[in-house]
């Protein structure tokens, strides 16, 4: 089920970026910077992993960024309001799952095209985030949370732990459970799913809900990094996630995907951003660069994809 054909591509890209940036970007090639990149990348990975599954089902989730912002606000407001960090964490996770469920229901039950449904929930989530944050204090959530971003377990930074565990979880889900089989079939041949008597709609809702859960988890990390919540903290992050998935070799059709590719894609995007930062390229232009890379990846994808398919 892995897409070994495309993997070398993104690996080469990563290698090129590493070599190139080491040469021209001041401070790039240092252990401290590497750790920095890895840490930042974990946030993106938590979004990109479920996005991989969503894209494998021929779907898309444009609401992840707005949902992430919302969850950080929920985290902050609930923790500060109730005095309990645990309650805040639970609320943040719940918020993420609910948005994910909303997406899933709109797409699986009402048959709305994924981009429209998630565009709508983007507005809803963004609006809720703004409304909730208004006039409320959303910072200073406390040391308990801060250890998530800054802490370490046995020498490994906690965020990296999150990343490794997340990757492991998704690997098992995709490659060792019926749910994973359903994900591939949803993208590859829904008829086959139905003929085999599997639950098509339930699986689709679950894919988006899973995304929502990991958005909630990402909110814990982001909230820890920010020291609280912010309603526009993660605007556009779904774009980087989609870019990472596309560059990593997952196709937008037919259910072909690679988690390993996504990991490399996340690293590639993260390294690109980091390097461009060190080169003092303004973040806005970085976005343009990432956008160009996505379009290039998709153009290549469509050019190749058109000549493949079931041998007949």
């Amino acid at each position, binding site marked *: 089920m892995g897409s070994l054909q495309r993997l070398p591509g993104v690996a080469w890209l990563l290698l090129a970026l590493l070599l190139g940036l080491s040469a021209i970007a001041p401070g790039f090639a240092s252990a401290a910077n590497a750790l920095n990149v890895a840490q930042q990348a974990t946030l993106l990975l938590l979004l990109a992993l479920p996005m991989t599954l969503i894209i494998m089902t021929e779907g*898309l989730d*444009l609401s992840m960024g707005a949902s992430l912002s919302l969850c950080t606000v929920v985290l902050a407001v609930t923790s500060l309001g109730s005095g309990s960090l645990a309650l805040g964490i639970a609320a943040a996770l719940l918020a993420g799952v609910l948005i994910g469920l909303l997406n899933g229901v*709109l797409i699986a039950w*009402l*048959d*709305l*095209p994924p*981009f*429209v*449904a998630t*565009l*709508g*929930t*983007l*507005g*809803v*989530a*963004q*609006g*809720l985030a*703004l*409304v909730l*944050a*208004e006039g409320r204090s959303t910072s200073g959530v406390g040391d308990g949370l801060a250890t998530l971003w800054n802490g370490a377990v046995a020498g490994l930074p906690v965020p990296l732990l999150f990343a490794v565990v997340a990757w492991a979880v998704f690997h098992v889900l995709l490659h060792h459970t019926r749910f994973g089989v359903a994900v591939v079939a949803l993208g590859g041949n829904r008829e086959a799913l139905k003929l085999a008597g599997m639950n098509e709609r339930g699986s689709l809702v679950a894919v988006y809900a899973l995304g929502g859960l990991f958005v909630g988890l990402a909110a814990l990390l982001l909230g820890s990094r920010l020291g609280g919540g912010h*309603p526009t903290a993660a605007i*556009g992050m779904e*774009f980087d996630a989609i870019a990472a998935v596309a560059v990593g070799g997952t196709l*937008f059709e037919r259910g072909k995907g690679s988690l390993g590719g996504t990991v490399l894609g996340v690293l590639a995007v993260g390294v690109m951003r980091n390097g461009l930062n060190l080169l003092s390229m*303004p*973040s*806005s*232009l*970085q*976005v*343009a*660069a*990432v*956008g*160009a890379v*996505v*379009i290039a990846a*998709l*153009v290549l994808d*469509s*050019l190749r994809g*058109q000549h493949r398919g079931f041998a007949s």
Partner: protein
Amino acid sequence: MSTLAQKIHLAPEQRSLLLRLVVLLLIGTGLALVSSAFLGANNLLNLLRQASLVFLLASGLTLVILCGGLDLSIGANVAMSACLAATVMKATGSPLAGCAAGLASGLLVGGVNGLLVTRVRVPPFIATYGTLWILHGLTYWFMAGDTIHGFPPAFRFLGSGYWLGVPVPVFLMIGVLALGTLFLQYTTMGQEIYATGSNTEAAALSGVPVLNRRLLVYMLSGGMAGLASLVFLARLNSAEGDMGEALTLQAVGAVLIGGTSLFGGTGTLAGTLVGALVLTVVLNGMNLLAISANWQPLITGVIVIVSVAADALSRRRSGD
């Protein structure tokens, strides 16, 4: 309601338009009762000005959706074109040059979108989503955090001026509505656009140049974004990298509330106009009632979801 309309022998599109006008009237009446400021001349004129801007942007989008496509990049296009126009105007001192730059920029982006969709065969939402972010990034970088302001009065007239007591953009709105409707209903190209959106395969097999029509509507959408950017710029009298971020969602909202189906082939510019009015009235009402601006994206998002869901359900009922 429906039997009355049927008795007067209205076609389904006209019935749908009438329904939306009634909704608009109801909302308007409600607001008038609740807020004394709503019916004030000032407020109504401002409302019309805002609705015109949304309509200008949504008109091009309507054509794209009618033809079976989608353009998510229009808001970013507005920002880019406005900033470009502003820069050119400052550099040359000529409003005409600025307008030309803005329009050209809009058309160019539209052309790129159109080519990506028709020649490279990238699905429309991915293509325009990608260009959205590229434009966004380029605009931000280009402006480098600066703001350009202070434009010649001749230019500002376009956005903030009045003629015969009515804001200028309203005339543009009426002009675009008239020209656009003439184009759609009274040219063969317009008929081909409807046919392409309704059933692309059948249109192609009937000898309709489907790809060319698709390219055309994307360019028109870009061009209208260019025009809207000029009006926007003229009204704000300043340009900065993040202008117009909320416009995409509002334009999409206007089109969908106006009754144009996302699946293509049905819809009118008049519907989009009413949709723009409904949306603007709702947002205006929220302002008057001192509801925080933060609710706006939420309300817009909910309206979009409800409209599309209603569209999907009614299509299912008619067995499509």
